[in-house]
């Protein structure tokens, strides 16, 4: 009993249950089965199976760190890893048993035992707390009857339907196939394989922790690269396809999956590279820091040139499909930079940003379309309408800002959320149908034409987005240190004091909303030109939420953060399209994880870093 109460045991049990719950949960929502569809290494391991291994492995590694911090010895760490492996598999194994014909009676038995167990625990605790024996017995009876009724109804449901699937729809054949590593017929073997792999993974996790620093870092690097390349096999193949010949590609990939030899080679290469980096990386960084300022400046310029060339060459390196993803990311970068003016600089929580996106898209659609709804049938070109879309969005931003000027914080957020909904409803309404087509939307939007050439492919549209984003980034950076930017920051900090500084807060807020809307309009127009049609269902509240999330994940008020946030939140789901039903689940999990581990965002701005760690003295700005 004392052993169970020790901090060590608590840590192991807690982490083990978490890992077990994770595997059980992802199985029950169907993620494991869905992820099984994508193979990481050809005929060796799928993404779903990888999930089963990664959970105990990572938890084992993490637990080893925790246990070491508690002062435990290496054997305890290893035992911890093994325990976590067992605990990871246990809940799913129990579910497997409940689900099998031979052991169904276990489920019945458990359901019948639950009321007695629950009642006994209650009564025991009461007794321990000093209650009268009669009282404890009375409580025992009441709890047993109540819980009994609930479990009895459950049992009834199972009896009628005959299996667990009536309640847990995803505990199905596919799930069983994955967790038993394709031993559905021979359950004992399947459970054995599953448990063994889980235990080995947990053990391996703790061993990895115990390794000396150099090989450990090298291994983490090698495993990470291999798993990422495998998981994003399709993306990697698309990139390689543009740059190497077909036969070599066939050696590496079987369709979208990494071949076993290729995976092994990749693992070895990346581990060696990781080893070299771990050994010499610090030296390299130190020598970079020790060189003098002018040399460093020229190195920076070289870096910038390489970056620019890379950005310009990107569509030809990554091919059509990924260029399309890049354009989508760019559209969201544009919106992120715009919304950041309202949220990051002026502190105005705008949840209706989709409004500006919709206005931009519809303006472009109606003015340039050559279909029945086009007002001018091709008289106006993309380039003429872009400034109009920008102005129209700014006007919309201005109009919507006027009534909410006096609101602050949560009230502002709710009001803007409402405006976003209004736009969606207007777009689909019968009232505006003659103009913007209602649910049918506007079709036949021509592609932009530049110097006589039609920019019809994503590779070409990419450059429009790139230029627009760069312009926007430039304006954004300049605003940060301008009089205008400062007045917004002052309002964000304290509206009353800002007024006392002589700032006209109403004007400043109007300006923030209006400017913030501008890039949304451009983004919408580019989106409309890219897709060629505009439908109302493209403009839902999820656009606003996506833009807001990418700002939060990247780092509020941080321009590079917004770019990274867009790549992570918009790019990744595009690449993992087949798992799109789990998109928001992953979004939610990612956001919660961010709030716990990195509330300041991936690339935080100086100010937010300070805000999050109040009490810690911030690094002096501009100090070496």
């Amino acid at each position, binding site marked *: 009993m004392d052993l169970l109460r020790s901090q060590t045991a608590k840590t192991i049990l807690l982490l083990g249950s978490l890992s077990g719950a994770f595997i059980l949960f992802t199985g029950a929502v169907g993620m494991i089965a869905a992820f099984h569809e994508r193979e990481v290494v050809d005929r060796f391991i799928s993404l779903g199976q990888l999930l089963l291994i990664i959970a105990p492995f990572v938890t084992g590694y993490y637990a080893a760190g925790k246990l070491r911090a508690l002062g435990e010895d290496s054997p305890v760490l290893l035992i911890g890893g093994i325990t976590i492996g067992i605990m990871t598999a246990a809940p799913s194994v129990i579910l497997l048993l409940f689900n099998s014909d031979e052991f169904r009676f276990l489920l019945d038995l458990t359901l019948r035992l639950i009321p007695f167990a629950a009642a006994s625990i209650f009564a025991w605790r009461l007794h321990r707390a000093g209650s009268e024996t009669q009282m404890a017995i009375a409580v025992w009876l009441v709890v047993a009857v109540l819980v009994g009724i609930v479990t009895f109804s459950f049992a009834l449901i199972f009896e009628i339907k005959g299996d667990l699937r009536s309640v847990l729809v995803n505990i199905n054949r596919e799930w069983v196939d994955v967790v038993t590593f394709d031993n559905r017929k021979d359950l004992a073997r399947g459970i054995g394989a599953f448990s063994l792999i889980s235990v080995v993974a947990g053990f391996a996790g703790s061993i990895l922790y115990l390794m000396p620093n150099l090989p450990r870092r090298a291994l983490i690097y090698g495993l990470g690269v291999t798993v990422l390349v495998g998981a994003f096999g399709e993306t990697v193949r698309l990139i390689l396809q543009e740059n190497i010949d077909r036969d070599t590609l066939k050696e590496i990939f079987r369709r979208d999956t990494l071949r076993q030899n290729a995976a092994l080679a990749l693992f070895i290469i990346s581990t060696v590279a990781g080893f070299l980096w771990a050994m010499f990386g610090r030296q390299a960084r130190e020598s970079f820091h020790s060189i003098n300022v002018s040399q460093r400046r020229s190195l920076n310029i070289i870096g910038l040139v390489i970056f620019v060339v890379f950005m310009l060459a990107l569509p030809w390196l990554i091919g059509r499909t990924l260029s399309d993803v890049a354009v989508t990311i760019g559209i969201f970068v544009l919106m992120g930079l715009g919304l950041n003016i309202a949220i990051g600089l002026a502190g105005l929580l705008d949840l209706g940003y989709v409004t500006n996106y919709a206005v931009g898209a519809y303006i472009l659609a109606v003015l340039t379309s050559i279909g029945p709804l086009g007002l001018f049938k091709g008289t106006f070109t993309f380039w003429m309408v872009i400034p109009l879309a920008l102005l129209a969005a700014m006007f919309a931003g201005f109009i919507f800002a006027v009534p909410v000027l006096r609101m602050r914080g949560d009230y502002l957020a709710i009001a803007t959320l409402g405006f976003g909904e209004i736009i969606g409803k207007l777009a689909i309404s019968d009232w505006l149908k003659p103009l913007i087509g209602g649910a049918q939307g506007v079709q036949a939007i021509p592609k932009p034409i530049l110097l006589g050439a039609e920019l019809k492919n994503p590779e070409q549209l990419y450059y429009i987005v790139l230029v627009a984003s760069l312009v926007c980034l430039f304006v954004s950076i300049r605003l940060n240190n301008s*009089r205008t930017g*400062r*007045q917004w*920051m*002052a309002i964000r*900090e*304290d509206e*009353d*004091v*800002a*007024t*006392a*500084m*002589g*700032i*006209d*807060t109403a004007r400043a807020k109007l300006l923030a909303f209006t400017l913030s809307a501008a890039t949304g309009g451009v983004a919408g127009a580019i989106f409309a030109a890219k897709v060629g049609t505009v439908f109302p269902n493209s403009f839902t509240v999820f656009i606003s939420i996506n833009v807001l999330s990418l700002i939060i994940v990247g780092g509020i008020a941080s321009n590079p953060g917004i770019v990274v946030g867009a790549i992570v939140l918009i790019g990744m789901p595009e690449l993992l399209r087949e798992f799109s039903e789990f998109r928001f689940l992953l979004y939610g999990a990612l956001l919660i994880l961010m709030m716990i581990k990195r509330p300041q965002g991936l690339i935080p701005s100086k*100010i937010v870093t*300070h*805000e999050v760690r*109040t009490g810690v*003295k*911030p690094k*002096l*700005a*501009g*100090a070496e």
Partner: protein
Amino acid sequence: MALLEVSEIHTYYGNIHALKGVSFEVDSGEIIALIGANGAGKTTTLRTISGLMEPREGAVIYEGEDISSTRADLLVAKGISMVPEGRGVFAKLTVEENLDMGAYVRRDGDIKDDLKNAYSLFPRLEERKKQFAGTLSGGEQQMLAIARALMSKPRLLLLDEPSMGLAPVLVDGVFETVQRIASEGVTILLVEQNAHMALQIADRGYVLQSGEVAISDTAANLQQNETVQKTYLGID
């Protein structure tokens, strides 16, 4: 003519009648202290003068012009600057950025010189100019708030409880600074609960009681006044 003339102002918070006909005058170059207990209407008076609130009746006349319904941000350009209660520095801007904000309404080219002046008045701020204002100590934040208010080159400086929440040692320093600013020709209207210190540096004082001016006299006389001694100075 008085620089600032407050005549018979009535200010309300909703239905609550906070100021019931407050009148007083501030002459150019004076230090005037408004003292009174909690809830007497001191801060409300300052907020009414600075334009954050509007009086329902009465007038605030500054340099011969009625400013009762002029917006707060416009008054800064007219030369009225306020140091709000609780200091109100922009915690997440650096010290220097805070000072820059103080000069927000100015468009002349002398801001750099005034920044130097501010640093010579408060050397501590220069040492910490790149630091976030939120990381300063209470006393330093108060100095920053005052320095920031001076950056708009005010003719009238409104100080709301500058000694609040400061250690006694620092309070002396703050009042010394206020005197020094006044000696450079800035008129000062000081709202204080610390009546003892306020009356020591003030020329004249007004005692507010439940939204009305109860006593008005020179600071020296007020210090001798029996009621004031009993109620605000803690002398029996």
